[in-house]
């Protein structure tokens, strides 16, 4: 095969840098000395309300509980505003607060009170008239994820919907990276077994 070797200069000088941009993880905070103020957190919260609510919905599978979770997350985040490190990602921090409120307060209380959880099949669906094929597919995906055990569901949501790195997922869920990996692997094994029809496409084979 003929390779046209070019006269173009080869760029050398490999050096540790961040060519891929700053959309990185909390592990690489951009240095900034400022301590976040309550007003800044409040403004950031406004931007993230819908995403927090969606995470609350994924965890609890109940809209009313999702509302509560967001509210308590807001209260807690404002109280702890001085603890937020400027330069790290606010959304990750908020997710971790919501997660811990869910695990340590709301979920355990509901279990104690014996309310349990409705198997809210229909919570994670897109409703509305005129379901297109895309909606049908989306609903299939939502149903599959909804059927996963809670721990796997949270990991799948954070990694595959919110696009967090394993390290970030581990940070939000407060678990080791190895546990993130095993939850995602288990979820993949389950999901791949349930994927059917047009969702899998012929890729499923």
């Amino acid at each position, binding site marked *: 095969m003929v390779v046209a070797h070019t006269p173009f200069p080869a760029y050398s000088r490999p050096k540790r840098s961040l060519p891929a941009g700053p959309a990185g993880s909390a592990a690489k905070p951009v240095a900034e000395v400022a301590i976040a103020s309550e007003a800044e957190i409040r403004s950031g919260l406004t931007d993230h309300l819908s995403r927090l609510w969606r995470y609350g919905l994924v965890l609890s599978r109940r809209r009313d509980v999702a509302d509560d979770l967001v509210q308590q997350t807001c209260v807690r985040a404002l109280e702890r505003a001085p603890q937020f490190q400027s330069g790290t990602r606010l959304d990750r921090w908020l997710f971790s607060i919501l997660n811990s409120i869910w695990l340590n307060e709301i979920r355990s209380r509901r279990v104690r009170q014996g309310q349990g959880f409705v198997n809210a099949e229909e919570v994670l669906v897109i409703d509305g008239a005129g379901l297109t094929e895309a909606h049908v597919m989306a609903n299939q995906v939502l149903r599959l994820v909804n059927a996963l055990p809670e721990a796997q569901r949270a990991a799948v949501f954070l990694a595959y919907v919110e696009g967090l790195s394993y390290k970030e997922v581990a940070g939000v869920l407060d678990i080791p990276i190895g546990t993130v990996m095993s939850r995602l692997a288990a979820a993949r094994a389950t999901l791949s077994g349930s*994927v059917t029809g047009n969702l899998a496409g*012929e890729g499923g084979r």
Partner: protein
Amino acid sequence: MSESTQFPSDEQLTAFIDGELAPDEAARIEALVQTDARVAERFELLSRASLPFGAAFEPLLSQAPKAALEAMLSAIPLPASAKSEPAPAVAGRRRFLGALAACLVAGVIADRAFIGVKRQLAKGDEGSEWRAVVAEYIALYTPDTLVGPVPSNAAQAAQLAVLETKLGLPLPPEAIALPDVDFKRALLLQYDDQPLAQIAYLDPETGPLALCIVRSDDGSAAPRVEGRKGMNVVYWATPAHAFMLIGHAPVDRMQALAEAARARLAV
């Protein structure tokens, strides 16, 4: 060889699919997938779970009772503990938080207020290091690495969906299709803790070809050409991403292919 090779765990295969392995480990797993039918089968199975998660969950955002939540938030009184420290950069931070809202739509929540500063620091050819790493990786490919049928459109879309989420860039199969070369697969790799998308093609005439994408805020750049590891590279950038097309085809053909990709991926 399969007797002596360690069969990768589901965790390792999952991390490979998700682009969470270090390059050497990823290369090891990839080699196993290529050479061991049982590993390939397990890889296929786990890959089947690469569903369009982002798109499926997107509509739930609009179901959030946004107005009610905003009202709730503004009703929370100032906590006594949160005496705001008037930091020197308050105005800047405000703008940063405001900017978050704009990025939210694209699902790109980034520390982008720092772009300006970083851009100044990141000028020069620092953006070239990732291309060197990719070239090392692609140099290991032979046409046999990419044998097999061209995945169906649905299978392509599923593979690409993973990359879309990680990169915040729409990648429909039509957009990444290149003239006269076959799409073979889309892989998520990792470079310097950042997602790196690798879309591999097979050119019947010159062999393996790859389009790679990373997030980058170094600013837009018109296509340029360079040689690496005996291959030709065309690279360019949009405001949010850096692209490179690498392969063994002659320069003018590489430029034509890059132009086709660039036109369809223009954001």
